[in-house]
């Protein structure tokens, strides 16, 4: 019954989303305020319906209702509570429903918080949001219905894909989806601006917090996914340039460009058309990401939903929204009033450079991901594009960007003084170079590029600190005054500083992987292997039972300087209802580095094959990402970014249109 209720709510949601698309848009066209006012109500009702539908599916999982096909295929009565809740989005249908839920949530939030916006823009934006919701609800109902019943119902479900039974599943997809779907808001704003024909600094101010929120979640989602792959896949890498990873990286890169270009637009009224294009591209790439993952068009380690028919449906949605929006862009963008003049050496000039490099880097990822498909389709030639290609193209595009970043941050708007900025950043640059030299000297004969990477990371960190310092200090001001001023700086400045420091921290973490130690060994119980500064001793092996799996595990103890500092118990799990074992790596964190172990076969001599790693400072990679996201959230909290505040400050009570 509850399942049918959820199904029905979804059908109703389709109707409401169609109404929420058509009537407000008609209102915008005919300047009918009553029709335009329907948009927020429709969006709120839509959210309520989708939430009801989602709750119904979750209830089916909680009750282990095996008359529902989706529950049979992805759940098991022995499954712990956490994996029943997260099991909802472990599969294609459920994750698409989560996607729609988040989309409806964003529309609802927009309907709630955006009331101070100009009426025409507000109605148009919400209508575009509703149209996206309509397309995906239709997709759910027609091609991926999660509420399909089965009669007779089996006694037991098939269980969750073992790779997905992990706390990572509970966190990674929702974070990533909030990021992907959050990009829809910028898209809707762009289409709204193209429809209403008006775009100005206030538009940038409205759209910026939404883009920032999406960007923060995308950052966290990607970092979480990377950490999950790192400890789950069992070979110790943290980024594989897998097509599905690339699918999440592309919107992130463009969204990064977008949050920078909206700053230029807000401050200097420039880059309007470019910002509109970026807004469209960000969400388009999110859709492409959804398509790549959901259609199975690219073979990758993530391809757990392979179904070309659904792929065709999503491809249709893709063509409709991307093609439609770009057509609208080509038609309407030239009509937008272009503004803004800038000198090349200025803050806005640096931000343009930032956008240029990010666009080129996105192109590298995009072409690298899709070129093999295109080439095979056109000529039949099969080539592979993997990590070595991306290392050779993506990095050369990102490293110069990192190098110029602190300069850009310190330059003034309109007309910057590069020489003066260089002088002010001399200490930061000098310190970074000094650190690089010291690392070279200390690790002579070791990695060649890694010390440079660390130096660059420190340059970003020191550059950001210097920027805050210079803003607070001024000429001959006492330290206490400077501190007070630093605290009083706008949150958006602290936010961008923090985010840029995060980039530096991640970069240091990545560079430090060069000093990682890897040992591939076969060990007998009682044997000890040296891994970096640690001695890792195999104590023994055993068999144990989890809630819904059996695990063969090996027990290692880790000795640091003659003292036992911890134990590692990597293993292989066989889940109930599945036959393929999954490997379970074990981690021991020491400081910011980790000892990492995974085990494989036992050979006829009774030795266990093991991979043991010492990864110094590896946690910096993800800590940096978290710092970036924190910076983004700080910026969102900035008074000036809040729509209500902006409206009070800027708009002296807009006259109603009627």
């Amino acid at each position, binding site marked *: 019954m509850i399942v049918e209720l959820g199904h029905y709510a979804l059908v109703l949601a389709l109707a409401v989303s169609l109404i929420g698309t058509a009537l407000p848009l008609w209102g915008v066209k005919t300047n009918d305020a009553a029709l335009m006012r329907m948009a927020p109500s429709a969006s709120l009702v839509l959210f309520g319906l989708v939430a009801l539908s989602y709750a119904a599916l979750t209830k089916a999982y909680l009750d282990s209702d095996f008359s529902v096909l989706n529950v049979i295929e992805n759940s098991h009565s022995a499954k712990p509570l956490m994996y029943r809740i997260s099991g909802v989005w472990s599969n294609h249908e459920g994750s698409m429903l989560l996607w729609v839920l988040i989309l409806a949530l964003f529309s609802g939030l927009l309907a709630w918080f955006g009331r101070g916006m100009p009426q025409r823009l507000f109605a148009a934006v919400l209508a575009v949001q509703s149209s996206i919701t309509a397309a995906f609800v239709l997709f759910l109902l027609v091609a991926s219905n999660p509420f399909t019943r089965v009669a007779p119902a089996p006694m037991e479900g098939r269980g969750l894909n073992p790779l997905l039974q992990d706390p990572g599943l509970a966190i990674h997809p929702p974070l990533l989806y909030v990021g992907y779907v959050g990009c829809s808001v910028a898209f809707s704003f762009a289409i709204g601006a193209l429809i209403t024909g008006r775009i100005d600094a206030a538009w940038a101010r409205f759209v910026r917090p939404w883009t920032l929120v999406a960007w923060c979640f995308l950052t966290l989602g990607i970092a979480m996914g990377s950490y999950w792959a790192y400890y789950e896949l069992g*070979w110790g*890498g943290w980024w*594989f*340039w*897998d*097509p599905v990873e690339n699918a999440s990286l592309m919107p992130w890169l463009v969204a990064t460009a977008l949050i920078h270009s909206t700053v230029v637009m807000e401050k200097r009224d420039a880059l309007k058309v470019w910002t509109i294009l970026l807004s469209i591209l960000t969400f388009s790439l999110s859709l492409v990401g959804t398509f790549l993952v959901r259609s199975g068009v690219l073979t*990758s*380690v993530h*391809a757990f939903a392979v179904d070309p028919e659904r792929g065709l449906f999503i491809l249709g949605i893709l063509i409709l929204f991307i093609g439609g929006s770009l057509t609208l862009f080509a038609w309407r963008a030239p009509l937008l009033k272009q503004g803004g*003049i*800038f*000198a090349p050496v200025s803050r806005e*000039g640096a931000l*343009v*450079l930032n956008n*240029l*490099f990010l*666009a*080129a880097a996105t*192109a*590298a990822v995009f*072409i*690298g991901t899709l*070129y093999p498909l295109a*080439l095979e389709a056109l000529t039949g*030639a*099969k*080539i*592979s*594009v*993997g*990590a*070595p*290609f991306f290392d050779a*193209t993506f990095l050369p*595009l990102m490293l110069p960007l990192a190098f110029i970043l602190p300069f850009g941050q310190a330059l003034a708007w309109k007309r910057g003084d590069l020489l003066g900025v260089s002088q002010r950043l001399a200490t930061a640059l000098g310190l970074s170079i000094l650190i690089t030299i010291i690392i070279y000297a200390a690790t002579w004969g070791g990695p060649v590029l890694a010390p440079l990477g660390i130096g660059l990371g420190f340059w970003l960190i020191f550059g950001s600190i210097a920027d805050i310092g210079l803003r607070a200090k001024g000429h001959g001001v006492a330290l206490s005054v400077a501190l007070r001023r630093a605290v009083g700086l706008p949150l958006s400045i602290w936010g961008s500083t923090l985010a840029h420091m995060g980039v530096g921290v991640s970069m240091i973490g990545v560079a430090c992987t060069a000093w990682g130690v890897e040992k*591939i060994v*076969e060990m*007998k*119980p*009682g044997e000890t292997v040296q891994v970096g500064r640690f001695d890792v001793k195999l104590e*023994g*092996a*055993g*068999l144990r039972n989890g809630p819904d799996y059996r695990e*063969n595990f090996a027990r290692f103890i880790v000795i640091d300087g003659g003292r036992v500092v911890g134990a590692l118990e990597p293993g*292989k799990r066989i889940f109930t209802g599945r036959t393929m*074992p999954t490997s379970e790596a074990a981690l021991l964190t020491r400081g910011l580095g980790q000892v990492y172990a995974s*085990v*494989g*076969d*036992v*050979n*006829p001599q*009774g*030795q*266990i*094959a*093991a*991979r043991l790693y010492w990864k110094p400072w590896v946690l910096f990679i993800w800590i940096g990402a978290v710092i970036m996201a924190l910076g983004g959230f700080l910026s969102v909290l900035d008074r000036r970014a809040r729509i209500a505040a902006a409206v009070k400050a800027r708009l002296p009570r807009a006259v109603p249109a009627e």
Partner: protein
Amino acid sequence: MGRLLAAVLFTLIAAAPALAVRPDEMLKDPQQEQRARALSAELRCLVCQNQSIDDSDAELARDLRLIVRERIKAGDNDRQIITYLVDRYGEFVLLKPRFGWHTLILWAGPFAILLIGGVVVWRQARVKRVAVADAPLSPEEQAALKRALGERDITKM
């Protein structure tokens, strides 16, 4: 105790997939082994999804790893080994495709975008700067500016 556990383990996990590079495959000479690992990271496991033979558990990946190590032992250099493998398995085996007409867009595309974008921005900035310099304020604008600045003589600022 250890023997018993090992025996238990052997019967239980012998069927499980192996770890990628196994110790028995590795070359004695650490320098040669390092070369083999570096080469393996650039070669695709043909039956896998986006995995290098260095990362893959598949049997075929193991065969390729062994071939790479045999060629190294036979004294081939890296280029010869790559050619050897491409001759047998096609360019599909390379994770970093060769530069050529068929991969021109792939390799040059991103940098071309950077270049073209750079030229466009540079030209735009130049055109606009000239335009600014050539457009002095109109008398009305002068007057408006004067009012805004509180009747101060703007020529002295």
